[in-house]
């Protein structure tokens, strides 16, 4: 028995009949075709699927699409505007904040939300903020640099 959901994704209204068991991440990837949000574990640990739901960072493998009905969702694809990168994306590029790139969209979204709460986080505050996002490539150092870069850029 499918259910109708209306979710605004990166500003565009998406309406679809979905199975109640469909995860939000599957809705984004399979229904909306937005494959920037990745699935790394399906158990809510790795954070590769992190998106903003009504401004809050959410692991979209732990949320059903039907639970997001009526929400506004922002994915990594929705961060840059008019070809200009979001400061956090720019920070990742400038500071070599990524290697294989698989965890990157989730990391970026988590840091976007962190910087909304705290415009000038310390390195330790950044570490704690991204504690729910796993990266196996970078050792996190350059990711923290990237967050600092973005915070500084956003303040200027």
């Amino acid at each position, binding site marked *: 028995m499918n259910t109708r959901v209306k979710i605004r994704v990166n500003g565009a209204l998406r309406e679809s009949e979905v199975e109640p068991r469909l995860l939000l991440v599957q809705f984004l990837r399979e229904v909306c075709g937005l494959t920037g949000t990745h699935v790394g574990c399906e158990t809510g640990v790795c954070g590769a699927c992190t998106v903003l739901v009504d401004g809050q960072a959410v692991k979209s493998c732990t949320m059903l699409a039907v639970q997001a009905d009526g929400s506004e969702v922002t994915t990594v694809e929705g961060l840059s505007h008019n070809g200009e990168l979001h400061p956090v994306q720019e920070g990742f590029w400038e500071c070599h904040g990524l290697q294989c790139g698989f965890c990157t969209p989730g990391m970026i979204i988590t840091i976007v939300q962190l910087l909304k709460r705290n415009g000038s986080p310390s390195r330790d505050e950044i570490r704690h903020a991204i504690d729910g996002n796993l990266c*196996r490539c970078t*050792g996190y150092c350059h990711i923290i640099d990237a967050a600092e870069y973005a915070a500084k850029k956003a303040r200027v």
Partner: protein
Amino acid sequence: MKRVEDPRLIKGIATYVDDLKLPGVLHAEFVRSPHAHANILSINTGAAKELPGVVGVFTGADLNDKVAAIPCASPLPGGKTVSHTVLAGARAYFVGHPVAVVVAETRAIARDALDLVEVDYEPLPAVIDPEKALEEGSPLTHPELGTNVAFTWNLHSGDAEAAFKEADKTLKIRMVHPRLTPMALEPRGCAASWHPGESALTLWTSTQIPHLVRTLLPGMIHIPENKLRVVAPEVGGGFGSKLNLYPEEAVVSHLAIRINRPIKWIESRRENASSTIHGRDQVTDHEIAVRKDGTLLAIRTKLIADVGSYWQLLTPGIPPLTGLMHCGCYKLKTVHVDITGVHTNKMSTDAYRGAGRPEAAYLIERIMDLIAGELALDPVQVRLKNMPEPTEFPFTTATGLNYDSGNYQAALKKAQELADWPKLLEERDAARKAGRLFGIGISTYAEICALGPSKIMAAGGWEWGCVRMEISGKVTVITGATPHGQGQETSFAQIAADRLGVPIEDVVVFRGDTATAHFGRDTYGSRATALGGSAIVMSIDKIVEKAKTLAAALLESPPNEIEFKDGKFFVKGVAQKALGWGQLASEAYVAKNLPPGSEPGLEASSFFEPPNCTFPFGTHIAAVEVDRDTGQVKFLKYVAVDDCGKQVNPLLVEGQVQGGIAQSIGAALMEKTVYDENGQLLTGEFMDYAIPRAVDIPDFVLGSTETPSPSNPLGVKGVGEAGTIGSTPAVANAVVDALSPLGIRHLDIPFTPERVWRAIREKGGRP
């Protein structure tokens, strides 16, 4: 230099395997054994096949006579193993062993159908402990082999008896290097599409080795090599776990042909933990002969390697690397290593980042500290005493390796400077006086990279590269190396731009597709820049030579009078009348004014065959404090000085080192793959298998020295695994040093709070 591959990755528009959109695609899911060891009495696929949307359900009986068994490229003489069919036959022999495959219209239906496949298992005793597996009367992983010994490997160099007689002191130590799970963030996955008109198959797979897959897979699925195209699209990390040809790739390829529809399979994290290769898992017993001045005379090692239940691509090849790297960066003359590879009812071990070298670095660097502790010597002095001088290179080790170049003392000195060594020692003394458990650990490692001449490799140790000056003057570089996160699209573009004298924006690097990169041996063993980069340099040299003859004709001057500088060709002394790449490329392809005997075009490809491996080295220093009450290890300082030869892109080098150290800290402090006594995998998810989080990793103080390798024209050595090799022993030595006031002489990794707390408690240190 920022990475050219980053924009697509940070915008979320890169294409990993699961992001591929293939019209009419079907989805495969695998039924896997929940038992470590069981006879398969029957499989009933009827209910699954009846589920609407299911296209087919296949068992070993349907596939194993049509798809050949999984290949191993490094069998050892006298080794014994089973033919590992792509699906289990009469017996399943590890948890996660694929037993059947379901193909359905959607992934959800395929997963639903898994529950409807009824498999009747008869559980058998499981072999779990590799040492007990060698005892008489042990159950057998493979009864038909009559033994759990998979292979033996011995290296006896030097006169051990004489060395032990000469020794002032002999030490004994047992070390356990646990099994580790690579856990690349992107699990494996593949998609195959059959093109009946051309009788050709395209396989997209999350792999480090598309070219080796193209070499090995055709024979398994019975199509000609030149009818198979293998593409490694964006690959989300490998660390050796994707340096393999796995059953799922062969099954999906075969079924895409058989069903004549594209099929995709994406591994779940649970499958990744159970059915993608593991690493390490060695138990070693060492006898050490040493003079009282700290000179290391000999090491005798008995090494038991738990290789799991079958051989993946390089399974038997990894423990011997530990044997060959026993000397680390030291001059000892006598090494005896006896390795026994043991089959158990577990997933196979294979090359996980470092592949045999982290185990070797761990044992030799722990041994250095044990010697210092036993003889009351300074661990730094013991190391210096045993190192070859820079003038002694090339240096042949007792194990027969020819180390290309090195200055171990310089890296050590620089690391001590960066660590503010005298002050660090004072801090430790003060902390100890205050009753705190403060430790300093040092590791001076050497490793082997850029694998490596064809004569020592199973199937070609070269690398291939092509450079094409396009008619427009843009540059296309095609590499047979297959980077998967390391950033060689950038470093190879840098190499081409620098040497050709063109803007880097004009260079495009293609990789990971056997249709464009006609040859390749791919990326593993920190080989891509040293070998792949060198093949590009060779090709550039060829097109520069050709362009010179063309310029000579156009400038009406003999070729030896033509000079090439900053992308311009001119007659010596007449730089104002120069020809650029744009003009020469256009002339080369329009081909109206070519010199006699010259072919049109401006393209060259090359195979680079290295004369030797490279041997990077460095020094890592860790300072830690152990909490007496909880056993928690906290970093106070971490310094690493790595020498990877010349650096093409220092920022990328730094990223490789940081990531390697973080993985190694994971191995030192928290990671361990655990099977219970029945062979159930207890670490099957990120919830149970800890990999480091941001809060676990300190900021590093990094430095480097630069000792060029003479083994390639770039002088590079490789850096992909250095951090993983140098770091674990530094952390281990620091933790043991912190615990040494309690009388603790050795403790094995991982230093989980529980393990450390128990060790403290046993020694009466608290509480």
